[in-house]
C-alpha cells in the first residue's frame, strides 16, 4: 500500500514565534519541526507497517528553505522518501494557494491513502485537508483516532462530541488524524543515519505547472492589516493559606468576580 503523508514544517512551539515585517509568521527565526498532528498520522502509517502490512511512506510538504531539516526527522522515523514543493513565489501563500499546490503535487504521485494532521500548530485553520480532498476528488474522512485499511477500503474511528463514529470509504482516500492515534516514536540512531541517504525531491512551481501569480502573498484571499499585543491579565492574587482557609478565599474570589 502506498501512503502519502502531508508533513508541514512548522516553527517549534517554544513560545518564540514572531511576525516578520510583512505581518506574516517569521519562519526563518525558529527551528522547524514536523507539525505535531502530522507526526501522529505518520506514526499511524508506521504502525501499519509494524503490524506486517507492506507499506511505502512518502512525505509531501510545501515549505521554504528550512523544509528539508524538518522532513529529515520524518525520514528518520521511518518514512521512505519525501517531496518538497519549494519556490520563492510561494512566500505568503494562504490556505487556498496551499491547496492548489498540494493538489498539483498529489496528481504527480501514486497513492492509496493520503494522511494529514487535522490542523497545523502555526495558526492553521484546519481547512486545507478537506479542500484538498475535494479538489483531488478523494473521499474525505476526518478527525481519525484510529485508521484501518481493509482490502480496497479504509475504515476509521472519527472523534465525536460524545465518543466516536466508525466511517468507511473506498480507497484512494484522504484521512486526517490527531493525537489519539498514539505517541510518535523517536527516531533511532540507525533511523537517523539511514535518513541521510533517503531522497528529498524538490519541486518548483514550474515542475507542477502552477502559475506563480496564482500563489504567494499577492494572491492571498485575506490580508493581515494590523497586529497588537493583547492586555496581559493582571497579576494573580496568590493564596498560601492552609486548605480550609484557601477554600474560603477561592469561594470569596469567585463570588467577588460574580463567577458563581
Amino acid at each position: 500500500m502506498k501512503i502519502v503523508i502531508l508533513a508541514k514544517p512548522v516553527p517549534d512551539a517554544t513560545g518564540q514565534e514572531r511576525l516578520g515585517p510583512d505581518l506574516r509568521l517569521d519562519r526563518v527565526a525558529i527551528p522547524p519541526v514536523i507539525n505535531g498532528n502530522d507526526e501522529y498520522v505518520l506514526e499511524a502509517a508506521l504502525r501499519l507497517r509494524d503490524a506486517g502490512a507492506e507499506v511505502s511512506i512518502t512525505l509531501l510538504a510545501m515549505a521554504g528553505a528550512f523544509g528539508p531539516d524538518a522532513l529529515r526527522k520524518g525520514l528518520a522515523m521511518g518514512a521512505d522518501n519525501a517531496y518538497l514543493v519549494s519556490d520563492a513565489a510561494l512566500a505568503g501563500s494562504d490556505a487556498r494557494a496551499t491547496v492548489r499546490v498540494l493538489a498539483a503535487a498529489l496528481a504527480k504521485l501514486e497513492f492509496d491513502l493520503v494522511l494529514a494532521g487535522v490542523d497545523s500548530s502555526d495558526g492553521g485553520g484546519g481547512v486545507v485537508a478537506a479542500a484538498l480532498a475535494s479538489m483531488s476528488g478523494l473521499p474525505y474522512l476526518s478527525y481519525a483516532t484510529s485508521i484501518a485499511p481493509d482490502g480496497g477500503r479504509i475504515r476509521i474511528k472519527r472523534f465525536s462530541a460524545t465518543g466516536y463514529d466508525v466511517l468507511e470509504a473506498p480507497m484512494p482516500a484522504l484521512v486526517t488524524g490527531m493525537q489519539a492515534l498514539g505517541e510518535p516514536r523517536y527516531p533511532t540512531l540507525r533511523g537517523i543515519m539511514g535518513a541521510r541517504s533517503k531522497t528529498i525531491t524538490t519541486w518548483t512551481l514550474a515542475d507542477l505547472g502552477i502559475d506563480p501569480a496564482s500563489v504567494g502573498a499577492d494572491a492571498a484571499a485575506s490580508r493581515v492589516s494590523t497586529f497588537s499585543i493583547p492586555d496581559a491579565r493582571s497579576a494573580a492574587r496568590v493564596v498560601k493559606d492552609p486548605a480550609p482557609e484557601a477554600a474560603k478565599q477561592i469561594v470569596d474570589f469567585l463570588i467577588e468576580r460574580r463567577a458563581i
Partner: protein
Amino acid sequence: MPGTLWAIAEAGPDGHLTKLSAEVATLVRGLGAAAGRDVAGVVVGTPDAVAALAGELAAYLPRVVAVEAAAAATSPIAALAAQGALQAMGADPNASIFMGNFPDGRDTAGLLMAALGVGVISNAGGVTWNSGPVAEKGVFGGRLVTTSSFADGHGIVTVPLGSVPAEAAASAGVVETIVLVGAAPAVTVLERVSEAAGAVQIEEAKVIVSGGRGVGGPEGFAILDSLAEALGGAVGASRAAVDAGWIPYSRQVGQTGKIVKPEVYIALGISGAVQHKVGMQGAHTIVAVNTDPDAPIAEFADLFVIGNLFEVVPALVAELAARKA
C-alpha cells in the same frame, strides 16, 4: 450585487442547535444590520429532524433554509452541509459564509473553500464589518492579536465558541425547505458510539474543573467530579492526564484538544504549558491550585493557590456546601 451573509448551523449530540451555532447566527444577524446586507441561515439534516432544527435557528435569523438530506443518517454531515449550503445559496458570488470552528464546521469550511475558490479566515474571535468581514484573532497562543480582512470583501469565516452571546431576534424568521440533490456521498457512517452520554460537554460548560498530571490517577478525577458537581460544571483535563488514560480525550483542553471559554476555569495539578494555555486562556476567571509556587500557570491565573489539590479540593467542596446551607 451585495452578497448575503450566511450562517451554517449544526446540531449537537442532543439533536438541538448547538450553542456555538446560536452564537454564529447572532453574530451574522448583527453584521447584517451593520452592513445593510441580507442575512440567512442554512441547516442540513435528515428529513425528520431538520424542520425542528431550522425552527430553532429561525429564532435568530429572519430567513432559514432547511435542507432535507436523507443521507445525513448514514454519512458525515460536513460534506452534506457544504453541498446543502451551495444549493441554498444559489448564485451569490459576493456571499460571506460563517460557521463554528468545531470539527464539522471546519470540514464544511474547507469543502466550501474548494467549491467556491474563496478564502477562509479561521478561528476569528472578534468579527466586525468594514466593507466586508474584519476578523480579530489571537495567534501564537494569544500572545498577539491580528486583524484580517478579505482582499475582495467576502469569504468564509470560522468562529470560535464564545465570541458573542447568543441572543434571539425580536421575532422568529421564516423557514424554507429544500431537498438536497447530488451524488451519494463516498463516505459511510457504519456506527455511532457514545462513550460519555449524559456528561456535560466541556465546550458548553460555564464552569470547568480541570485536572492534570498532579491529579495522579482516575481516583483523583473522582474528587474533581464532586467539585464539578458542586459548581454545576464539567470536568476537563490536560494532555498529560489524557495520555495517562485517566480521562477520555474528549475532555482534553488545549492546542490538540478543545478550546474552551467558560466563566470559570479551575486548573488542578496543571503546570500551564503553552499548549494547554491556548485552550483555556479565554476563560473569564482562572483559578489554579498547584504545589509548585513557580508553576507557569501562576503567570496567567487570576487566583493562584499554592497548595495540595487533595487537600484544597475537598475543603472547597465542603465550603461550597456550607455556604449553600
